[in-house]
């Protein structure tokens, strides 16, 4: 009787321990996706701010070094393929493979130059990330506010997850989506001119800056 109850006790202990182990396994975050979009973009924005605030990189001589660093952050955070496809949308198929590649390259340069100019004009603004929402399984929107001395500018990022990495595919400033804005411009040009003309215009624009 004693042995039986002893072995029963032991069995119960083992069962208890097993249950504890299984529960612990489920309690561990196996797939952390909540908060990832916001964490990702916040990290990159902070990286940019660090470069801008770095006392070692102040002054005209350090401008190139600053730009190089910021370019590499851009290349990490923007998904240029998504950007290109979404801004051309229906017109994407009008471009052949080489033209598509050139478009992506030129658009990257255009966007980078535009953002670089705005970022280098940075003085003291603070960026406040205040909301994150999932738009679908692999898309999210992260909302932020840029606080200048006189204004509060809402800046939202739309992000897409590819290969477990979150990248930005649209920036919405004061309700104006960058993708939609470029799409309407490209649409207008391509309704009258062939893809090569658009590439020519882009080439000229990028070379000017």
């Amino acid at each position: 009787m004693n042995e039986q109850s002893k072995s029963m006790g032991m069995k119960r202990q083992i069962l208890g321990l097993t249950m504890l182990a299984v529960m612990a396994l489920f309690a561990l975050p196996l797939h952390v996706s909540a908060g990832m979009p916001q964490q990702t973009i916040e990290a990159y924005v902070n990286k940019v701010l660090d470069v801008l605030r770095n006392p070692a990189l102040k002054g005209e001589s350090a401008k190139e070094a600053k730009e190089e660093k910021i370019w590499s952050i851009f290349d990490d955070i923007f998904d240029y393929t998504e950007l290109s496809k979404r801004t051309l949308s229906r017109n994407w198929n009008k471009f052949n493979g080489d033209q598509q590649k050139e478009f992506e390259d030129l658009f990257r340069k255009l966007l980078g130059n535009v953002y670089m100019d705005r970022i280098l004009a940075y003085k003291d603004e603070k960026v406040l990330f205040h909301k994150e929402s999932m738009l679908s399984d692999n898309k999210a929107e992260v909302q932020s506010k840029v606080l200048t001395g006189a204004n509060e500018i809402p800046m939202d990022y739309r992000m897409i997850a590819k290969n477990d990495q979150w990248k930005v595919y649209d920036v919405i400033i004061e309700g104006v989506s960058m993708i939609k804005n470029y799409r309407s411009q490209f649409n207008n040009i391509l309704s009258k001119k062939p893809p090569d003309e658009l590439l020519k215009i882009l080439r000229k624009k990028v070379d000017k800056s």
Partner: protein
Amino acid sequence: MKCLPSAVVILGVCLIISVFKMNPSSPLAWGEAWDPDSQKKGSSVVDESVPARMKTARATVDVVPSAAGEEEEEEEIVEIADPIYYWNKGMYHFNDKLYFWILKPVARGYRWTLPEGARKGVKNFFYNLAFPVRFVSCLLQAKGRAAAGELGRFVLNTTAGMFGLANPAKEHPALHPPDEDLGQTFGRWGVGNGFYVVWPFLGPSTLRDSVGLVGDSFLDPVRYVEPMEASIAITAGDTINETSFKIGDYEALKDAALDPYISIRDAYVQHRKKKVQE
């Protein structure tokens, strides 16, 4: 039997209300989009506030090819009709020259003479003066909380804020509703944009928003200043003060755009759409 007519009237009113309620943008949809305690993100891409018969804008449906080759969600861009394109383009060039030749140099000089703190005071003062416009539009859209917020902010800033020069209401999120105007009110009521129009001096607008501007001008205290030259001078001063904070923005927009005219037109429509939705 005597109460039958009144019952019919009540029933009829209920039916009408229920029909309107199905249109989320009607004035009888009492739901307020703005909640000071939580931020609600903007809604979908499709312009629901435009009833079919009023839609003079073309909507293009774009199917975006994804990397995997399969078709992703369809994103609808609402283009605006631009029947007076040549007038608009002309006005765009006029305003462009006006900015670079007159407004920007004056604003720069002004910015150099007056420190930011003083300019912010002026900005706050004029913002406070525009209270009637925002307040009335909140009421017309049945946005009770926003109207209360506007009133609270006006009272606080006018008294504790020294006639609007300071902005003590900044600390209270409940006293910071989204700006409303008559153009947005019409949008809420289901009026479509109409078509795009660029006014000299005033800049981009639409048929709907222009009518809104006229209506709002009756609620603008500066309009009633005598003589008329003083009224215009005050408005000009307000414009120069506002511009002093935004020097560089217009240039950046032109820099970023392949076609600035289209870019501004599209940005204006998107921006107003968002404001109507808030």
